[in-house]
């Protein structure tokens, strides 16, 4: 393993391991509190602990700001990234691709499920207008995009998807407090399995805290995080569905 393969944090000298940390503890803002903070960082395994900021948060809490050194290192050759691997095509190219390889419109039903009302993200992907100068799926010739909007119960989404004979289901989850997104996404997949819909459609989820990896883990086909565009999703759908046709 060459030296380059070892990845360590960098402050101002290669491999110096410097990190910035801040956190609050239920301790007073005094020497005792500072020592508690130092011991905590030591217990985590940090060296060269420099607690440079200590702010009294009142009610018995104190905020600490520290610089520390970690001896942790990551072996670059062991990093396996699960990412959506299909190439990204523009709108016209995708439409063209679908015309040639699939030959009919793809029906996509999307929603923010359960308690989530954050529609901006899924609108960015689905609505005509799109996002950041990329049109949404509605604008594509070969997509029939049905956006059910906010707070759609999983049951309703699946029912509609069945009714529309959807090829793809798109789900958005933005709120993640207490891992509510995991619960909701899992519920949808379990229902889909129970209703024998899981294998009939692509299940795709998205949101700022969603990664492709997490999506796979939860039983989805793909996941899209912050900064995704309709082009990414449309290309993925087109190429993946075309692949299924070939295989099937």
């Amino acid at each position, binding site marked *: 393993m060459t030296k380059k393969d070892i990845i360590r944090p960098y402050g101002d000298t290669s491999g110096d391991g410097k990190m910035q940390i*801040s*956190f609050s503890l239920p301790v007073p803002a005094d020497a005792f509190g500072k020592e508690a903070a130092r011991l905590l960082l030591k217990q985590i395994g940090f060296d060269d602990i420099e607690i440079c900021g200590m702010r009294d*948060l*009142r*009610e018995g809490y104190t905020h600490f700001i520290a610089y520390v050194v970690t001896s942790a290192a990551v072996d670059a050759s062991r990093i396996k990234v699960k990412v959506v691997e299909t190439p990204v095509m523009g709108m016209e190219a995708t439409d063209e691709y679908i015309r040639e390889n699939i030959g009919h419109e793809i029906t996509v039903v999307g929603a923010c499920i359960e308690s*989530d009302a954050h529609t*901006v993200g899924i609108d960015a992907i689905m609505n005509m207008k799109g996002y950041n100068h990329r049109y949404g799926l509605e604008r594509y010739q070969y997509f029939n995009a049905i956006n059910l909007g906010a*707070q759609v119960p999983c049951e309703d989404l699946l029912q509609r998807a069945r009714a529309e004979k959807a090829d793809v289901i798109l789900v958005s989850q933005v709120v993640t407090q*207490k891992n*509510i997104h995991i619960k909701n996404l899992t519920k949808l997949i379990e229902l889909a399995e129970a209703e024998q819909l899981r294998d009939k459609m692509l299940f795709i989820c998205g949101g700022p805290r969603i990664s492709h990896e997490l999506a796979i883990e939860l039983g989805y086909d793909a996941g899209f995080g912050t900064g995704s565009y309709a082009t990414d999703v449309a290309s993925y759908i087109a190429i993946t569905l075309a692949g299924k046709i070939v295989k099937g």
Partner: protein
Amino acid sequence: MLKLEIDPGLKQRARSAAAKIAGSFNWLFDEYSSLTIERTVLRFLGIDGALKDGKPLPNVVVDHLHAKQALANGTAIPVAKAMLSGNLTAQSVAEAVGRGDLDLTNLPSVPPQEIFEVLDGLSAKMLKHIRTQRETREQLFQRFGPRRVPAIYVIVATGNIYEDVVQAKAAAAEGADIIAVIRSTAQSLLDYVPYGATTVGFGGTYATQENFRIMRAALDEVSEDQQRYISLTNYASGLCMPEIAAMGAMERLDLMLNDAMYGILFRDINPKRTLLDQYFSRMINACAGIEIQTGEDNYLTTSDAVEKAYTVTASQLLNEQFALLSGVKPEKMGLGHAYEIDPELESSFSYELAHALLTRELFPDSPVKYMPPTKFASGNIFKTHLMDAMFNFTGQLTHQGVQLLGMMTEAIHTPHLADRSLAIENAQYIFKAVKDLDASLSLAPDSFVNTRANSVLREAVEFLERVAEEGLFTAMARGEFADIKRPENGGKGLDGVFRKGADYFNPFLDKMKQELGL
């Protein structure tokens, strides 16, 4: 001093278009009532608590009457009747209904005079309690001195009222003037108000009367410690606007989110239901001396802050007119706007300065509610902290009424204790640094800032005149507001609106109108 030169003709046109729009709903306000209005009456009569399954007793009673199609004349009379017949308190009446022991549509007859006496007594008592709460607040402000301008407003949102208390007390000790307990996700859509102290919520803590009480008590305690009156706020909007307003009045909340149109546009609640409910709920706020705050910021979380700046102005003007109809005084109208400008925009600060000054110029007496950057907040906490600083700068420079502090973790999670503390530090530093800066500066009349403010107002006027022409409901149905189509008979809660019967009676509505001189 930074002062805009605004075409007075435009101001005049703006107000008359808005007044025309708001003024066309007397038919609704006079002739209709709703489930939540009736539940409010019950709460005011003293009914509280819930069944084992969580269904609140006010809902039990109203649903009972509704199911029997006996709601047209309101709930006050049947409950009073039952009280008299059984020599019961309102609460025992409700409990009996809850147990299925009592049918309010099948009561022995009672002389109307007795009924009105009972109701007069109970309503006088409740209105006195509310007045006392208002006076207590006024005395506390007298004692501790007035709120700073802009006031420092922070949210707590742990989902657990007891955890919220810790965070609220810490925030108050650090300098917060107003504590908002953020509601659990989409409480707007519940057609009841949960009961009791709650410890599990998503993205916030349920608005319940007990939670209000717990937090008010905690803040009264800190107010003494800090020798500064710490205000409490929560949300009225939704399917229970007047009920929550009533709870706020009883528990001495000091401000309440109460937007005339939020429910319609952003929660798909039926337009008639929303306008009707806000009318009564704001009257309650007005009697309680509670400062209302409106939700113009919501327009900008989905639309562009420059392109759609006029929608904020238009909504402020409408909120003002609707509030006047409910007897809210200008100095209790916290009209909203927000620093939702794209940080990548050249001269973003100048745009915001124009918008912030326009609000102040149009509503000089309003304790304007100024919302922080949220849409362009990103996972880069350091950048978000800076955007919040620019927001704080603008708030102090233009003397907004209430500064809803931004958090550097806006794009990540509901605020941690330290996030809130850093937000307060941010505001305190900037407020102090630019304290009297305004006094040194003036605005060139042909400057970008002045020109921009005038053009936003012009767009708002043109928009409002168009809406006045076609009517608010038609305009909403066509998606003129926030690009969302809301048909008059669509949305949630329409079935909870009913036309008043000939003998309809709401003992509070009449008394409040009188008290407010309406």
